[in-house]
């Protein structure tokens, strides 16, 4: 069976089906994005059950308000990631604030730093997952497998120039994880301008 749907088309049709109240569409949406949503929430919150809760909230939001996604503003995947990020950071701030009020350890600056750190880490995850596969593969070899760029080039079957280019480009993409401005502001997932 040929793949008929290009991503923008898939996104648009998915939104229409969700708006129509088609339960099967909700299942397909979950199958496509659940591991992204859960992974990001877990990176921010560091807790399995809290990540489950965010996953539930994200899909409930999309299902209840499919019209809040505008396909013209960017891919559905980006929108879902942004929504996940916002809800997870909100939850982290709420739990940390409650903990602070209860035992008085730490300062609000500590709290903000923790929130910012979690937020950047989650965005970095998203960037790594979304970057073109060749770039990710090069980073994987050079960083996790500790190959130098010549070995990386050999492993990937590309020139040394190309290996250097991929490592640099991959890190350039990754470095945009820091670019989201103040914590709590809409994170820069790079979709809607």
């Amino acid at each position: 069976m040929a793949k008929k749907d290009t991503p923008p088309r898939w996104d648009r049709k998915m939104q229409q089906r969700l708006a129509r109240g088609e339960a099967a569409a909700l299942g397909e949406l979950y199958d496509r994005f659940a591991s992204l949503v859960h992974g990001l929430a877990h990176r921010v919150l560091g807790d399995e059950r809290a990540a489950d809760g965010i996953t539930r909230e994200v899909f409930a939001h999309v299902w209840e308000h499919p019209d809040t996604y505008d396909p013209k503003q960017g891919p559905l995947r980006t929108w879902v990631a942004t929504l996940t990020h916002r809800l997870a950071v909100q939850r982290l701030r709420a739990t940390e604030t409650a903990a602070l009020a209860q035992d008085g350890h730490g300062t609000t600056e500590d709290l903000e730093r923790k929130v910012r750190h979690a937020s950047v880490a989650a965005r970095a995850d998203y960037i790594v997952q979304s970057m073109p596969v060749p770039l990710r593969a090069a980073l994987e070899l050079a960083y996790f497998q500790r190959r130098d760029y010549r070995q990386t080039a050999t492993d990937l079957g590309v020139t040394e120039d190309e290996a250097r280019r991929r490592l640099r480009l991959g890190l350039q993409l990754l470095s945009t994880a820091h670019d989201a401005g103040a914590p709590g502001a809409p994170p820069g997932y790079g979709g809607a301008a």
Partner: protein
Amino acid sequence: MSGADRFEAYGGSGRPEDRGAQGGIGEEGGPGDAGARSDSGGADGGEWGGHGVSRDSGAGSGSPADGFGDPGEGSGGFGPGGPGDGSGGSGPVPAPGQPPRIPMPRASVEDGDRPLPALEEPIPSVPPLVLEHPVLKSLLGAWALAACSPQEAEAVEEHLGGCGSCADEALRLREAVGLLQRPESLDLDPGLRTRVLESCLDRRPPRIPVPDWATPYDAETARLDALLQDIGDAEWHAPVRLRWFEADEATSRRTTVAGVIAHLLTVDGLIAVALGLDDPLGEVRADAPTPAGRTEAYWRASHFPPTRSVRVPWREQSHDLVRTVSFTGVGTGRPAVSYGTFELPLHDAMLDRAFECWVHAEDIAEAVDYPYGPPSPRHLNRMIDLAARMLPTVLAVRRQTGRAAPAAGRHLVPAGEPGRSLRLEIEGHGGGEWLIPLDSPGAVGSADHEVAHVALDGVEFCRLAAGHVSPAEAAAGQLGDREAIRDVLFAAASLSRM
């Protein structure tokens, strides 16, 4: 497109930062530059190799590089200005006007400290590297990852002292390295899907629900897909033995994990055809329109053994089936699904496919040594119910072909009347009790006419019905008419097929 790619379908599709970064790279490194660089790399090949070894051994000996490489430690492992180093709200960016403080890459930190004596030897024979600005710039990524040679690292670091734009970028890339993390575990709790979907549907009831009888198929295909997501390329070729009962004998057929998915694709295709969707067999002609006939034809038609690429069409078809039955499966006029030698109503065919999906997912999980649990109790119960409802017909066919004890000497039971019955008691989650009429598919099971009682665990019963356990070996508690019990157990095993 591989299955994994589906989740990356949007990668690099024109996100603004992609373009920005592309532009940054594009401003240098034309083809001429690339050629020059690889020439010099080739000429120096032997020497680089030697230093590669020293880099590796340094990394292996508990250097700062190891500390940094541990994603658990993350940010703390390197110098001032590292991401999240706790230096307060100002962040890693230096005050304007000040030169950026650039942390050294992980390996070259100790290369810079330690190898000074060692440098005395190579330096006379190897002149210091003189590299052009574009080459040095192109090395920044590798440098930040400590993935270039000590000479190159030295040349880059020297250059950073005098080049503001490279220094800025070096700092930025160095910090980016601190953001590389092992991916979070992908193993989602398979029960989470059901819980999330149910909570959504509670909040906003669907206008077009997935029919009750299609939810086991929806859940089982999602569970199998999650397993496939996790397995590696090589595991798709792990051998799997399909097992079933034919003519009361255990039968098997060897294939691979990918071959099993191809089997599910072609047999699920029976429902696709009944619903008017595309037949996954396409132009391939099967000897017989049966599950086995179609599967063998599909396997034969491909020049190469199936690979993981079969996952996408299988998954798309399963999504299409759930979607289509949500629209057309309600009300009367549902099409029957032909299996070649028999037919099932659409709702039973969907249950049957859910059952097969689980059974084969277990085959796959066993082959690749992954854990795999039974379906949810509610779905397991429906699968058992389907088997229990099919037993009277199967018994009648077996009687006609001499495989079950004849009904001779017993009074014929008119349709709709109570008849001689066996009580099937299924224990465990998803269990229950079923009265199986023994003498006629039209008869009604009756407690007053109970002649035998069989008790077994739900999963064990399903293994029996899948042909994975023989009737003789099935762990079943038995009471009453032994011949009736034997007939029912063999009939259950004969429900299995390829």
